[in-house]
């Protein structure tokens, strides 16, 4: 019984934890701009994150070695360091975007300029990392994030022609006003939003934090195979809502506040209140995950003690990195950068950087020294290898596309 509760809780957390500011922005933006022509990318992305997270979770559980530990061990110190710098920088962009997202969500309730709320939001994020135990933190924000189910209710309430929606999603094409380049660029953005590397840093470090054992591998699978697809349903609902409400009105999404418009349209005040809670929880949860990931990556590369299962004075360098990252992200957010632009760049670069962390995990998941008899099965390896190819193609294409489309303009 206790086990069932734990599994359910894990799944719920995974649903809430799947969506962050990247998904909120990317799905609303592409829905308003491309209709359902990019819906397939969400499906490809969620299968990718399932494969990646399941492997990373299994490796961390069996060997007790999280992602960046293995990155250095398999890629060597020099290439590992380049990898660390790239991953840390992208994670930092995401952290900035999430903190700004928390501030914006608060500003939509408090009617204060979000810039004034950024230091407060950042302090809150740090305080939770400093004081709240790992599991309670994860459950609290995962469950609050379930408020985003309201976007699914939004779509149901609008009552679209479901057959027509499926037909559109199943027959994607480049809309007449777009070029193949912008189409590809936004496909990468959506993919990066669904398959963000920090999710895996966090997930694999979390497996060590929560002291998972072999018997928890079921929990790992349940979280990943049930939680993430349900999270993807929320992403698709955001896209459909934008396609139904915003696209016919020629509204393009360039503010986080516009993400709530379809829900306001369909469900009124109750919907609005719920979606704002959901946006707050999703960005806050992701700010915690990226804040911790800043510390995880550096500490694991250098072999320092890390984690929330330790007292802060038992992992001081880890906490110092977390603290400094949050502080610098706060300053960057306050400098007047456009949070939506920062989000877009963070998800696109996330997609480009994926092979750097995916590849070592795929290799270690096949190493009997680490994994014993828990190495990848034939099917996991087949899919895992296909995704490796996909990720490499994306990584190569991203920067040229970014330049050609001027950042998707």
């Amino acid at each position, binding site marked *: 019984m206790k086990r069932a509760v734990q599994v359910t809780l894990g799944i719920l957390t995974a649903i809430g934890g799947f969506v962050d500011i990247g998904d909120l922005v990317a799905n609303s933006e592409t829905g308003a701009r491309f209709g359902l022509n990019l819906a397939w990318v969400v499906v490809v992305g969620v299968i990718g994150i399932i494969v990646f997270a399941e492997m990373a979770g299994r490796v961390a559980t069996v060997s007790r070695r999280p992602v960046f530990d293995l990155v250095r061990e398999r890629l060597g*110190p020099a290439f590992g360091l380049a990898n660390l710098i790239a991953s840390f920088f992208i994670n930092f962009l995401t952290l900035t975007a999430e903190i700004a997202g928390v501030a914006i969500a608060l500003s939509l309730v408090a009617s204060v300029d979000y810039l004034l709320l950024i230091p407060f939001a950042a302090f809150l994020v740090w305080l939770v990392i400093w004081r709240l135990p790992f599991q309670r933190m994860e459950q609290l924000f995962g469950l609050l994030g379930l408020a985003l189910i309201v976007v699914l209710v939004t779509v149901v309430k609008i009552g679209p022609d479901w057959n027509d929606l499926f037909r559109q999603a199943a027959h994607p094409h480049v809309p007449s006003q777009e070029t193949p380049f912008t189409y590809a660029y936004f496909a990468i953005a959506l993919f990066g939003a669904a398959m963000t590397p920090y999710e895996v840093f966090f997930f694999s470090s979390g497996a060590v934090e929560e002291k998972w054992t072999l018997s928890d591998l079921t929990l790992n699978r349940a979280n990943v195979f049930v939680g993430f697809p349900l999270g993807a349903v929320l992403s698709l609902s955001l896209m459909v809502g934008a396609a139904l409400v915003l696209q016919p009105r020629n509204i393009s999404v360039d503010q986080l506040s516009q993400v709530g418009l379809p829900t306001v349209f369909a469900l009124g005040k109750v919907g609005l209140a719920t979606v704002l809670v959901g946006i707050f929880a999703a960005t806050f949860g992701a700010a915690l995950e990226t804040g911790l990931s800043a510390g995880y990556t550096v500490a694991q590369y250098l*072999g*320092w*003690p890390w984690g929330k299962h330790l007292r802060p004075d038992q992992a*001081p360098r880890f906490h110092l990195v977390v603290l400094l990252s949050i502080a610098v992200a706060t300053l960057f957010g306050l400098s007047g950068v456009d949070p939506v632009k920062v989000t877009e760049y963070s998800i696109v670069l996330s997609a480009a950087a994926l092979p750097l962390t995916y590849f070592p995990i795929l290799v270690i998941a096949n190493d009997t020294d680490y994994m014993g008899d828990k190495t990848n099965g034939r099917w996991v390896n087949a899919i895992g290898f296909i995704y490796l190819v996909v990720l490499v193609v994306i990584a190569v294409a991203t920067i040229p596309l970014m330049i050609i489309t001027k950042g998707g303009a």
Partner: protein
Amino acid sequence: MAERQYYLGLDLLDRQLVADDGSLVGKVDDLELERCDGGDELCVTALLSGPGVLAQRMGRRYGGWVQQAQRALGRAGGDPTRIPLARVVSIGSHIELAPGSDELAGPAMDHWVNEHVIGHIPGSRHAPE
């Protein structure tokens, strides 16, 4: 126990060092080699760990920079730590050390950070609750 073989680069370098109490105390940043019993053969005599060792391994120039930084920081910079081979308990996905790891560079740096930053923040000595 049967004679065990290791590829030093693959099996030892860059592995996590774990103290007897389970705490993480650094990485194997390099290995020290010496002639075995004065003969022609080389033996591994110690594991080396610390930022200076790592930087030195990546290039002499970086090693110089880190050494300068370490001189400036004093003990906080972390001296290169030499762990005699006899202290190694097991070699696997991590390397387990016998008791007595307090004098390693990693814990020393943690101590410095505690004394100057983290220890001054309220709640640093309490487990999250």
